[in-house]
């Protein structure tokens, strides 16, 4: 078997005195698509934020390609990682946020070229070609010189996806990327994610409330309940034949809502 791309080993996380994650064990293979579902407050977002190094685990190990993310080896011992180590490992990871977080002072094109040029050292011309190609793919090839504030929420989120994809990460994280959008623009964003997923090589972890979408896109669905993985498996098994009562209630609430 190939080495998993991402490994969570007994990861705990507390905010102040509240433990939000109580021992997460999770593996993601290269190219695998995973949907994280669960009630709000169950810790889904925290799981991917720790992988993006935005939140530091209280205990446990997270590995990317076998390398510990928050720790580094010094003389055979694991010690806390410094910024340099974080940067090295973090390069394989990309993230799309709920509130897009585009850079408001840069044009759409610049949003997508700034990091490749300055972080990865890609030649400006090459970076621009790649960015234009990607922006065309998400349907915004005509907005290159616009500023984020001039775009709709759905358009901004598509730019944010393009911005992350041009960095060519091995895994992309999606943090409730449609929940801040107007209902009519949700579809266009999901469509873009679906297209990228089809291309295959990139692994994806999606935190989402869109059950149908989760089913379509994911190889595996992981159900989180109060800080623990309560159930996981193939989308059809999870959604059609849930084992636990909790998952059943959770899914029912969703069906009745939509």
């Amino acid at each position, binding site marked *: 078997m190939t080495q998993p791309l991402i490994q969570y080993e007994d990861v705990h996380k507390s*905010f102040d005195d509240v433990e939000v994650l109580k021992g997460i064990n999770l593996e993601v293979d290269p190219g695998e698509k995973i949907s994280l579902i669960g009630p709000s407050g169950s810790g889904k977002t925290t799981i991917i934020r720790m992988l993006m*190094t*935005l*939140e*530091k685990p209280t205990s446990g190990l997270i590995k990317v390609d076998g390398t510990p993310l928050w720790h580094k080896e010094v003389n055979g011992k694991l010690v806390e990682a410094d*910024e340099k180590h*974080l940067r090295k490992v973090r390069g394989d990871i990309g993230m799309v946020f709920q509130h897009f977080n585009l850079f408001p002072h840069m044009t759409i094109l610049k949003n997508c070229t700034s990091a490749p040029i300055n972080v990865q050292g890609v030649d400006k011309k090459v970076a621009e070609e790649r960015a234009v190609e990607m922006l065309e793919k998400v349907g915004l090839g005509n907005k290159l010189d616009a500023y984020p504030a001039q775009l709709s929420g759905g358009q901004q989120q598509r730019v944010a996806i393009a911005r992350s994809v041009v960095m060519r990460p091995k895994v992309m994280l999606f943090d409730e990327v449609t929940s801040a959008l107007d209902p009519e623009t949700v579809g266009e964003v999901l469509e873009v994610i679906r297209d990228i997923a089809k291309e295959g090589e990139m692994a994806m972890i999606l935190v989402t409330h869109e059950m149908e979408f989760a089913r379509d896109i994911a190889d595996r669905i992981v159900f989180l309940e109060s800080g623990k993985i309560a159930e996981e498996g193939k989308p059809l098994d999870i959604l059609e034949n849930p084992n636990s009562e909790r998952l059943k209630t959770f899914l029912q609430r969703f069906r009745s809502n939509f």
Partner: protein
Amino acid sequence: MRWDWSTVIEVFPLIFDAMWTTLGLTIACFSTAMIVGAIWTALKRIKFKPFNWFISFVLEFIRSTPPLVQLYFLFFAWPMIPYIGVTLDPFTVAVMGLGVHFSTYISEIYRSGIEGVPKGQLEAATALNFSTRQKWTKIILPQAIPPIIPMLGNYLIIMFKEIPLTIVVGVAGMLTVAEVYGVNNFEYLEPYTIVAFFFLAMSYPSSLLIQWLEKKMNRRFVNKPDKKGKGVTAT
């Protein structure tokens, strides 16, 4: 120049006495600024365009020219103006000069307070058939005043620190006393350091008090931020 404690013992009481003049002057200036500021705010609400422009011009003029020169103007030039000109004593010059200069800032604070009251409040008051007077006393002012109290406090401190300027017209505040002592005894280090100390000792705690007040006001008038939204992640 060496720090000499015997000088400190000699000059400290003098400066301490002068502190009351400085504080008294601060209060007099600030009261003037509050009253004149209210007049400006009222005048600016008159909707006749040319008049409004004129008031804006006057305010901008007073605000962007040095208070020092304004003091000189009142002291040296005012008495010579025909009809209205009278000789003013230093204390009056200081109160008028700094009071009017800062009234232009205070009037901005009043305006921001009034504009900070949501329009819906006025509409609701109208819907309840309040009279104009009642609208102001019962609805607008009770909401406009609390948020501006910390801002006014800040300006009180700023004004306190401007009082030494009145040395040029001879008001016997702390700095003036220190200067007189310095010139007579050729000792500058201790008197000026003591004056600086007095200013710091009074304005720093006051500014902490105002910060505390600001936080308290914010909690009362602004929705609480969510728990996750605090600070920047340290990565």
